[in-house]
Structures are given as structure tokens and as C-alpha cells.
């Protein structure tokens, strides 16, 4: 259903949701937008969080030997590029990882759709910020006007609110169209066929990469983790395919060189996942590049002319 709310009704919506869910949202903590517990809709600061909301579903550091039923959480202010990551990851890990699955089932993400392109993101190359998959999707398209796409599972929260008119919907659609026109397009389609195993890019990146793993940690679609025993606990930690130990076995290491590991990251995103799950493992958020201390550009991997190196 699509609803039309004003700011006061948004606050009411928040109240209704907060009766059933622990509420979280992006707040300003010393200049960084950070997901934290919130107690009112007013506290919410809309913008891209410093770190992705991945931690709501995949523990950064947790004991996997002890499973506890998660609390029901509502997370306000998730950007579409971050939310989309969960829908993409679902295809590989939902239903298999018991922690991820239980949290996914018990969390409602309320995504706030950008109405102006951000400085570095390129989500429009992946369809733009208005998503087809969502739970509750909010577009604050004019000062006091919110268009809300809500999955029917949440319709009880919207009782008494009015449904959006055709005019309102077309206004938003036009806004989204303009957003997508404004943002520079990168030709993602077909990258799986253009990209080259022996491209010089991998060697160039290997010369500058300092193997910090920031690209993985900041990525809303990177789901890999490592298991390590510490005392009586078996700890899951986010892992990075850029690190040498990632594939080490007693038979050897299929990715000894840094260049081969950097290539793996981009091949997973643009070739392997597309082949196994039908989707690119990327949402165009550009977090990996924004957080990269040596400016390795994911857009370059997409735009690069592999045939004329």
C-alpha cells in the first residue's frame, strides 16, 4: 500500500511502531551519523550513516555457540543503498545463518529514500533509490509531505492514515526519475562479460592497497565472516577477502597474491554473484571507495575499458 502522511502523522507512525519494536535510528554523535536507540521520531537525523546498518543482522563480533531469540527491532533512517544490501545478501545467507535469519525476521527496516543524489553514490546505476523490495519505505518529497510504501505485513500501523493519491505518487515518481537522470550513470549491465581476469587493474590496485579491509567492513553486501575460538566462545568476526589468510588451507592458498584477492572481491561482486544468484553484489553506495585510504575506485572497475588496456 502507498500512504500519504504529514510530519505529525509520521510521529504517530513512529509511536505505533515503537509500541511493538525497540526503535533505532540514525542520530548525530559528535558529527557522525550513527545507528542508536531513539525515543522519538524527532531524534532521527536523515543521512547516510558513518557505518552501514549491517551490524543489526550480522554480528561484528559475537559468540555463535549461544543463540538467543532476538528482540523485535525497528530501524529508522536506513538509506536505500544500505537496505538493498540485505535483500541481496538474503539470497545467499537467509535461511542458512540462524542468527541472520532470526534477526531479519524480527527487524523492520524503515528506509528513507534520498531525493537528491549524494556526492559519490551511484545507486541509479542499479535502479535508483526507490526500491522494489522494502518493508516500510519513506519518501519525504516535500517539506511536510511523506509518501510511504508499506508492505501489507505492516498495514496495522497505517490504520486511519490516508492512501496516497495518483497525483502524489506521480510527483514522487517524477522526483525519482529526475534523481536518476541527475546522477552519472555507470554501465553495470554486462560487466560480468567485460571484466578481464588478467586486467592490469588488479596489479595496479595491489601496488597501493594496504589490506585494511575497510572496503569489506563498509560494504552493505559483504557478508563473509571468520570463526575463531576465544576461551569457551566461538567468535564470529567480519572477515575480509583482501587478507591473505582468507583462503589459506593445508593444501595451499589459492590466492597468495594481493592482486588475486582484489580481483576476487570484484569478481564476487560483479561476476560470481550475478552467476549464482542473478544479482550484482553491489548497490552503488560507494562506501568502499569513500572509506578506502588509497582511493581504489569501484566505479573504475565498472567503467574500465578492458578491451583496450
Amino acid at each position, binding site marked *: 500500500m502507498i500512504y500519504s502522511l504529514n510530519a505529525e502523522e509520521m510521529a504517530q507512525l513512529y509511536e505505533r511502531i515503537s509500541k511493538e519494536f525497540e526503535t533505532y535510528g540514525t542520530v548525530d554523535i559528535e558529527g557522525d551519523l550513527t545507528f542508536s536507540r531513539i525515543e522519538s521520531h524527532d531524534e532521527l537525523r536523515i543521512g547516510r550513516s558513518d557505518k552501514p546498518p549491517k551490524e543489526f543482522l550480522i554480528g561484528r563480533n559475537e559468540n555463535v555457540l549461544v543463540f538467543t531469540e532476538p528482540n523485535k527491532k525497528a530501524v529508522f533512517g536506513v538509506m536505500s543503498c544500505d537496505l538493498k544490501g540485505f535483500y541481496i545478501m538474503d539470497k545467499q545467507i537467509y535461511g542458512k545463518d540462524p542468527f541472520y535469519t532470526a534477526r531479519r525476521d524480527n527487524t523492520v527496516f524503515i528506509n528513507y529514500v534520498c531525493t537528491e543524489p549524494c556526492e559519490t553514490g551511484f545507486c541509479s546505476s542499479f535502479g535508483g533509490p526507490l526500491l522494489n523490495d522494502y518493508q516500510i519505505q519513506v519518501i519525504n518529497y516535500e517539506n511536510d509531505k511523506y509518501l510511504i510504501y508499506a508492505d501489507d505485513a505492516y498495514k496495522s500501523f497505517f490504520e486511519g492514515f490516508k492512501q496516497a493519491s495518483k497525483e502524489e505518487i506521480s510527483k514522487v515518481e517524477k522526483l525519482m526519475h529526475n534523481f536518476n537522470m541527475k546522477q552519472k550513470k555507470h554501465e553495470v549491465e554486462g560487466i560480468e562479460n567485460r571484466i578481464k581476469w588478467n586486467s592490469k587493474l588488479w596489479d595496479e590496485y595491489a601496488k597501493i592497497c594496504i589490506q585494511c579491509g575497510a572496503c569489506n567492513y563498509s560494504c552493505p553486501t559483504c557478508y563473509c565472516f571468520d*570463526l575463531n575460538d576465544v576461551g569457551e566462545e566461538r567468535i564470529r568476526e567480519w572477515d575480509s577477502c583482501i587478507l591473505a589468510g582468507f583462503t589459506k588451507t593445508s593444501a595451499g592458498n589459492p590466492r597468495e597474491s594481493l592482486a588475486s584477492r582484489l580481483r576476487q572481491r570484484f569478481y564476487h561482486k560483479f561476476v560470481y554473484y550475478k552467476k549464482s544468484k542473478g544479482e550484482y553484489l553491489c548497490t552503488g553506495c560507494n562506501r568502499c571507495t569513500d572509506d578506502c585510504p588509497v582511493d581504489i575506485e569501484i566505479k573504475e572497475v565498472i567503467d574500465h575499458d578492458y578491451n583496450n588496456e
Partner: protein
Amino acid sequence: MTTIMNSFKPHEKRIARKIKETTDIFTIEIDMESNSYPGQFYELSILGIGEAPISAASSSSEKLKFTIRSIGHVTSKIFEQDVIGVRGPYGNYWPFKEYDRILAIAGGIGIPPIRALIHELEGKKDLWVIYGARTPSDLVYKYEFDQWRNKANLILTVDRGDESWNGKVGLVTKYIPEIPDLKNMAAFLIGPPIMMENSVKDLLKYGLQPENIFLSLERRMECGFGVCGHCNVGHFYVCEDGPIFRYSEVSNLPELFL
């Protein structure tokens, strides 16, 4: 509300029997029935040290067995334990039901899933086994070889013999041409990457079809069920799409042989 099973949590199982096979390889029998087919693997763990993916050495009707080389931080300590963590089985198994004539080639510590196969088939199929090790003292399951010979045609070979050895010497590939009517067989390969690579080359040369050749791949399978992301070979995860792969489906994949 449905109760969620924590797939990360192992069952604590007693080690019922231990056999020292070589200086660095040992077999353990777990106090539980196998519920796996030859080729599948388990995650074995020692709390406080970690987990390791290990293929079952037992057939589906035996007690669960593993034959392990002490090489990593977990495998070097398993033999000392009375109780270990066991979870699994994971992955697929040798497609033994689909074929009547099978050539199994195992190198080194690749032998356990072939041992499982020999016991699974019980001599009911035309099974040929080429098992190669570096030296005679690296061969495991010596005490079972006579029994194996009743269930399969067994070719043992070592890279380097010694005074005690009057058997075959040379790489496993040297003995592939001795197998009768090779072209119409299925081949199951497991062992060091270079052994598998050379075996595949030769098998193709002798006329085996790429779709009848199967490889068991080893990667860093940490979770065992497709979520940790460590064991990919191209777009496959070894833990859930393998560990057994049909050669025709992976021949073009990069990083196939390390």
C-alpha cells in the same frame, strides 16, 4: 514461534577408538553412527582451539570415522582429545549410485573418502582404486588392504620405495592405463591439486568424458553451510555446491587447481 536450531553449535561426541596410522596421520572413531555418504564432510572442533573441515572416512553403515593429518592448530590436537565437537554432514557425495564402473584415484591424505566408498559399495560395483602416497610409511589403512581387495581392484603405489616395499613405484597417473575399458568409467579424484590436475589430463587423453570425471575440492570451509564465504571456487561454494564437482561443470573455472 518456531525454535531455531543453531547450526553453528556442534554435538559433543566421545572418541571411542584411536588408531595411529603413520607418524603424522591418525584415525578416530566417534561414538555415533555415520549419517553421511562417502565424500561428505564434517566440522570437527576443540573448544578454545577451533574447527576444521574433515571428510568422513566411514561408509553410511559404520560408526563415524575420520582419518586426519596433524597439520593445523586443530588437527594436531584432535588425537589427544577424549571428546570433540562434531557438526555435519555437509556437502554432496560421490555420485556412486549413478555408475556401475568406477575408478577412484586418491593421493596422500585424500584417501579417507575413498575408503568410505570402498566400504559403501561392498564389492557390489566394478570399483578400481589407485592409491598413491609419497613413501610406504605414508600409506594409511594398511591393516585393511586385504579386506579392500575383496571389494575393489586395488593398485597401491608410492613415489619412493624402500627396502620393505616390493610394490609399485611412481605417480598414480602411471597406473591409469592399466585399468581395463577405461573410457566407459566414471573417475572420482581426490588428493593434492597437482595430482588431480595431471590425472584429469590423462583421463581425458584416454577417452573419459569430462562429465564422468569428478573432483573433490578442498578449500577453507569454515561454516560448512554456505554463509561464511571462504570456500568459493568461481561462483560455487565448495561447502554447499561441492565438495564433489563434475569436471565438465568446473573445467573453465579459475583457481580450480591451486
